[in-house]
Each structure stands twice: as C-alpha cells, then as structure tokens.
C-alpha cells in the first residue's frame, strides 16, 4: 500500500539519515516528492510504499525526529469553473491530471501531492487549494 505524508524535521535532526533509516529498517520504498532544507529545519513530501506494518513503523520512527502529517485532499477542482481546456495537464509533476475519452479533464486526487502548480496555471481559477 501507499501513503503520502508531509514531514517536518526539526533542526537538531536535519543531519540524521531518517529516510534511509526507514528504508533499511522497515523495508519501505520511499519516493521523495519534494524536499526543502533550511538551516534550522527541513520540509519533505514523501511517498511511502510497503505493507501496513512497515508503513506504521516508518511513520512512528519519523515522528521521533519531527512531525508527520497525512496528505489528505490538498486540492479540489470546482467542476462548474473548469472548462476542460487541459492547460494544467503537462504541468502536474506526478501525472495526476488527464484527459478522459470524452476530453473532460479529471484529477486523480490520490496521486496529487498538493504542489499547487495546476492551481497557478489554471486560467479560470478552477482549483481550490486547501493549505495545510
């Protein structure tokens, strides 16, 4: 199973290899979707892939060094605003947006990492962003 999280790591621990630790210890696959390191803290968006136990354990481990927040639904498309132009499609870094057979544009919210690129590009401002 798959789980997406935001991870904040405190300044004391930024040098600790927490991501490789969970990979080694709990046998999860990790994709780093976003990473920003500041002098006194770090922000990561991670996708964890593994069985339920390994996910729970990984999250527990990560929590020892920072804070974990589940990525729930970060954005929503207002159907009545969207004109199905497709301008957003190529700008989604994880390919969560696509044209259906009938040329309507749909979002796979489970894939979305909340980067907001689509919201910035959308000419009709059809994407609502829930700031986390």
């Amino acid at each position, binding site marked *: 199973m798959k789980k997406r999280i935001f991870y904040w790591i405190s300044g004391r621990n930024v040098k600790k290899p927490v991501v490789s630790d969970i990979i080694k210890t709990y046998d999860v696959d990790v994709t780093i979707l976003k990473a920003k390191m500041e002098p006194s803290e770090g922000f990561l968006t991670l996708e964890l892939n593994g069985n339920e136990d390994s996910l729970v354990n990984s999250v527990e481990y990560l929590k020892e060094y920072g804070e974990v927040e589940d990525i729930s639904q970060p954005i929503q498309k207002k159907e009545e605003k969207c*004109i*199905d*132009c*497709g301008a957003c*499609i*190529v700008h989604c870094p994880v390919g969560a947006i696509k044209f259906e057979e009938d*040329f309507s544009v749909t979002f796979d919210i489970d894939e979305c990492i909340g980067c907001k690129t689509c919201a910035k590009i959308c*000419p*009709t401002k059809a994407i609502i962003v829930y700031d986390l």
Partner: protein
Amino acid sequence: MKTIKQINEKIKNGDAVIVTAEEMISIVEEEGAEKASEIVDVVTTGTFGAMCSSGVFLNFGHSDPPIKMMKTYLNGVEAYSGVAAVDAYLGATQANSDDDISIDYGGAHVIEDLVAGKEIELEAEGYTTDCYPRKRVSTIITIDDLNQAMLFNPRNCYQSYNSATNSRDEKLYTYMGKLLPEFGNLNYSGAGQLNPMQNDFNTTTKTYNTFGVGTKIFAGGAQGYIAGEGTQHSPASGFGTLAIQGNLKEMDTKFIRGATIPKYGSTLFMGIGIPIPVLNSEIAQTCAIRDEDIKVPILDYGIQRRDKPTLGVTNYKDLRTGKLSMELDINGEKVDKCIRTTSVSSYKTSREIAGELKDWIVNKEFFLTERVAELNTCAPKSMKADAKLVRDIIKRPPIVAKATISVPEASKILIEKNINHLPIVDENNCIMGIITSWDIAKAMAQSKTTISDIMTKYVVWASPDEPIEMVAKKMSANNISGLPIVDNNKKVLGVISAEDISKLIGHYI
C-alpha cells in the same frame, strides 16, 4: 444542388438532416461526398478557446442630470467611453486599474459577471457641458439595467493556430500558456476538425464556401452574426479570422468565460458555432476534414520576435495524443525529443457547441441565413517599426581573455580598455566565464589569484539576432549590467552593457 431556402423549408417541416462536423467525417468516409451531400443538409461546427480580441459595447442610458462619460470603470476595469455620452466599449484584455488585482479581474471577468447577472459597480467621470452638467456618477448596475450590451469581437475564431514550444533555458509565460524550458511542453489551441473556419474553407479558391457577412451563428450561447472578416484576416495562408456580434444579454456563462492566462493577461473564452449548409458535394467533402488533415506549425516562442522560427509541422490528431516525437536542432546537433503536448482550448466544450447548435436547428429555433457578401480577402501587414538588434550595436573586435591570465593582468585590461566586463574564453574563443571589476575587487580582498576561481561560470549571454529590448529585460531579470554576445557556437563576438542600451534608448526618444 440544394439552396439554403430549401434547407430552411426542410428544417421547418422537421425533415432536415443535421449532423455535427465530427459525425460528418464518417458519413463522407462511408457514403462518399456525393451521396453525403444528398443525405445531409446541415453540418454544425464549434470552437471554444481564448479569444483576446473580444469586447462589448454597452449603453448605460442617461442619468439625471445627464453626464458625458469620459473615464468609465466597471468593477475597477476601464471601459473606453470616447464613443458617445453614455456608450462604452469594454475590451476583454483590459487590466484592472488596481495594480494588485490587475489581470486577475480584467475586462473578460466583467463580461462574464455581466452575463451571469451579477451586480457591477459603475464609476464614471465626465466633463461638463451645457448638455451634460454632471461631473461624476457612481452606481450599481446589472446587465438588465443596460439598454444594450452588444458583444462585438473584431477578431475571433482563427482558422488555424500555431503550436508553441520554448527552446530557452528559462520558462516563458505566453498567450499560449506556460512554456517550460528546453522544449518541456508543446501547447496548442483550436478545435481542429470541429473548427468552423476549417470546415468551410475552400482550399482551391482560398475563400469560404458558404459563410460571409450576415451569416447567423452560435455566439456565446446566443444567436449572433458574422459582421465581416476579422482583423489580421489572412485566408491565403490559412489563417482566416472572423468579426462577430451578438446580444450579450442572451448569452450563457457556459460559453463565454473570463479567464487569466498566467503572467500574460485576462482574456475571454468564447464559444462560436457556425452551421454549414451542405449545398453540394464539394461542401460535403470540405466538412469531412479530419484532425489529421489539419497542419499545425510548431513555433519556437523562445525567440521573442514577430517571426518565430518554425521547428516542424504536426497535426491535431498527433497533438491530441498528449505527446509528440520530433527531431530538434539543439545547438547544431540533431536530437530526438519526445515533447508532452497540451491543449489550451476546450475540445469538450467545442463539441457541446456543435451539439447545441444542432439541437437548435432540429428544434426549429435556428434557421440558416444567406450571406450578404463574401469575406474580403486580405493579407495582414506588419507594423513599420525598426527592430534594433544586438548586432547593430556590437563593438568589434571583442575584448576577451584566456583563463590563464593573472588577476592583475585582467584588472589591467579592464582599466586600460575602460570596460567593466571581460569574457573569459577557451582556445576557440568560446565562452567559459565572465569577469567584472567587482569580481576583481573581491579577488583582491579574498587574495584569490586565478581567473577560474573568480569568474562567473554560469554566464547569461545574448545572441546577435536578439532585439535590444530583450537584452535589457534579461539584464534586469538577472540583475546584471553586461552580457557577452555569442554566436551559435558560443564564440564570443562582443559585450553589450546596460550603458550601451541606455545610450541607444536615449537616442530613440
């Protein structure tokens, strides 16, 4: 051979056969054009995309005491009121007078809000005369309070449009949307096989088979008319355009939508559909045009000139697959590249428009009109304005140096030649880096001794074909005061400084 009158009779009797341009494709494929022209009476088309050249004439009625409006604002967006006392034209691309809002709520958004029946703040200032003693007016109106709200779009419904990509190493925000660096995407616009202009275009005569001035059309959800050819109309090159008009009061926000193209401007998404009477087999054949038959040139918007280089030609069918493989010439090398494509107009809504127009005709709510005159054939001209290019102000020979010189030697060159920027080159005179007097000063303070330690290696450069306006933009964006000028092989031809540019601009004014 049929006539429009006969077709209208059939519509009245409920016997007419009406199909959309998409449906017509398979009919002509299966039955042939001759038979198809006997079976089908009307083909409906549709397109829905950003049409910047859109706007509305509004008549506000007279206030008491009357005012001659001179500066007129609707929700903070200026409408041009040098038309008559209480008439104004509001253009879709007009930005908001509030800098903080600017293109996020512009003319197009006011037009959408009018169509939606929302309340709009009207502020106007006049100049007083005996007829019009009032100086100012400030009130709230809706579209129902207006005498007329007449959509008039001087240029709509492009027959073809280029697709856009970007060769540069920085992203660009264009009217074709955001273009990622290094050919990161290819954006296209247009309804292709549903496009009215494509379906009526006679490739032999380079004119339109059936429509012209006075043709009744679907405009933004209402019944409107073709007013004539649009501005920059260029049928000979396949880039015909239309001027259209319609009653905004009857339009529908589903087919007329305010939008903002990021960092470009506000624009109106307009829906236009045109019925084509199938009078003969030639017309039937033309209406069967398919996405794959419509050529779309691929232009490099990275070259910010009027004439952008064409990198190749594709078609709507390939564009709609979402990716395109093409061979590109990158720095003189042939490279195969797979570029992701995306549309910036709506095929889905174009389809809905063709379908809606079909329903109108089936339901006897819409009858075809005979054109009053054909569209003029024109060929657009370019503006007479000289482009000053980098090559025009290049100083020769270029002053450059090798990375092997010492810091004091470099500083000597800067002082003796009275320059601020010294490009560092390899044995072929190709750019490796650049040194400024500031770098030298820093080197002294930090006791650094070799050129390669102190030079800027990530060099922003200009090509001789770039307009100086572009170079000025580059300098301010990168916060630098001079750029090396390099040819295609990165060989240094000279340096252009902010000072050179300001001298030139002074000269211009």
